[in-house]
């Protein structure tokens, strides 16, 4: 087992990639816990996998298509039913292009 030690900057980057806020998370504790898990899984480094194919799925199925005909669909009201913010049949989202005084 190789010991993996995450750096602070790596941890912060992982939060960004996951679209998660650090918020009140204890960074040092999270770093230790993640490093423990990554060290635990690094035992795979010792496994000889030369010539071994990937298994991404176990059913052996490929190209499962359905007929191009109407299936049951979710109506507009149902689709919007869970939304925090909706308006005239649309989900309301935070602005992407917003005025930036620093621009």
């Amino acid at each position, binding site marked *: 087992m190789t010991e993996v030690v995450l750096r602070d900057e790596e941890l912060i980057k992982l939060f960004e990639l996951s679209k998660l806020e650090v918020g009140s998370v204890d960074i040092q504790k999270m770093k230790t816990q993640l490093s423990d*898990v990554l060290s635990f899984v690094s035992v795979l480094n010792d496994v000889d996998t030369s010539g071994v194919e*990937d298994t991404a799925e176990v059913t052996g199925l490929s190209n499962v298509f359905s007929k191009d005909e109407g299936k049951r669909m979710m109506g507009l009201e149902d689709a919007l039913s869970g939304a925090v913010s909706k308006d005239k049949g649309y989900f309301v989202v935070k602005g992407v292009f917003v005025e930036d005084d620093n621009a």
Partner: protein
Amino acid sequence: MPKTIADYHRMLLSGETTVKAVVLECMEKIEKDNARLNIFLTVNDKAIEEAEKMDQLFAADKSILERKPLFGVPVGHKDIFSTKGMRTTAASKVLEEYVPSFNATVVEKLNDAGVIIMGKLNCDAWAHGSSGENSDFGPTLNPVDETRVPGGSSSGSAAAVAAGMVMVSTATDTGGSIRLPANFTGTVGLKPTYGRVSRYGVIAMASSLDSIGHVTRNIEDNAKVFEVTSAPDIYDANTADSRPFKFEQGDVAGLKIGIPSEYVKTLKDEDVLAAFNKSVERLKNMGVEIVEVSLPYTDKAAASYYILQPAEVSSNLARFDGVRFGKGRTAFGPEAVRRMLIGAYTLSSGYYDAYYKKALKVRTLIKQDFDQVFQGVDLLVCPVSPTPPFKLGEKISDPVSMYLSDILTIPMNLAGIPSLALPYGQTTEGLPLGFQIVGPRYSEELIYKVASAFEKHE
């Protein structure tokens, strides 16, 4: 409560009971014990009303029992199964107020078979866990010993059956999440062949590993439910090869059952070992030929799983953006955050080959181990857990020690094969013990045959 679904239907026909009486009994148990055991997150306050309607339907046409094999059966759904009009939280604050506008396929099938939904069952949030302690709404207690965990992630599912609050619970098993809680509560839990039961409408944890199963008190009820859920579904393309299941009982003498040495030689707990050896003796007395076999890559399975599963989790939880449903991503609990971060790491460029691709190759080796072993034996039996049910709080501060609870169940998920956990024996303190019967893909007919013969053997 009737001992089996068959008994229940017999008692309905003879007039010894009614659906309302059975549902009332369940509701009374829930009212008395749920606040303490924390099994249900949402209770169906219309259950008794629905039971009365069912009694009317039955009075008008008794043959309804032939068309609806689970008529009147009180059921609980793990709270990751979408239930139309009934809150579905995944035991997470993110979905604390989420009410689905559709039913999961399995929910729909059980409804068509005549069940009464008693409510939604607590679990580890997002099915992340082996004890139930990762629920954002507090852990579920083990009804057999309330200082101990019921196992997870389907903690509420197993506990509800053990506590007599339902006859059947739905559940999911991605790394052992049905088999471990079944084992810890003395109930019967099925992890079916991956792709045999539709995942549609079940909040996804790891899409290449999630297996949709259920927990019951006994083998024949478990088989009866599987007869309803096992089928192809156009809303889950992975079920294209699925097929119906038919419960068959019969003589199992002459079958060859393997014991994987790697599963037994690392066991340190004497109670677990003793009970397992007794179960092997019982199989021998049934005329089964027991053979020692080897699955050499067993000790690499947990590592492969804890790379692949968090990677798939990080992808599946990306949809919770707080826009179309649910609260924002700040509402995720610590274990979900940990798994998303690990997933991000192992999928990121620079680490992808060393971790994720490597784990995909090790997955092949683990699957090949099983394929090879099943050339020589019909089924395998092995323990489910290295230990009897552990105490609340015992493993929660060390994620890795919690992950190690799954080492005997993870390999079957990686290989996509079925396994049935059944109870057998107890520790000296009266804690439940048991084992699992494992088979190749689509071998559930044989697994249930052996399980039934084992349960009935004198």
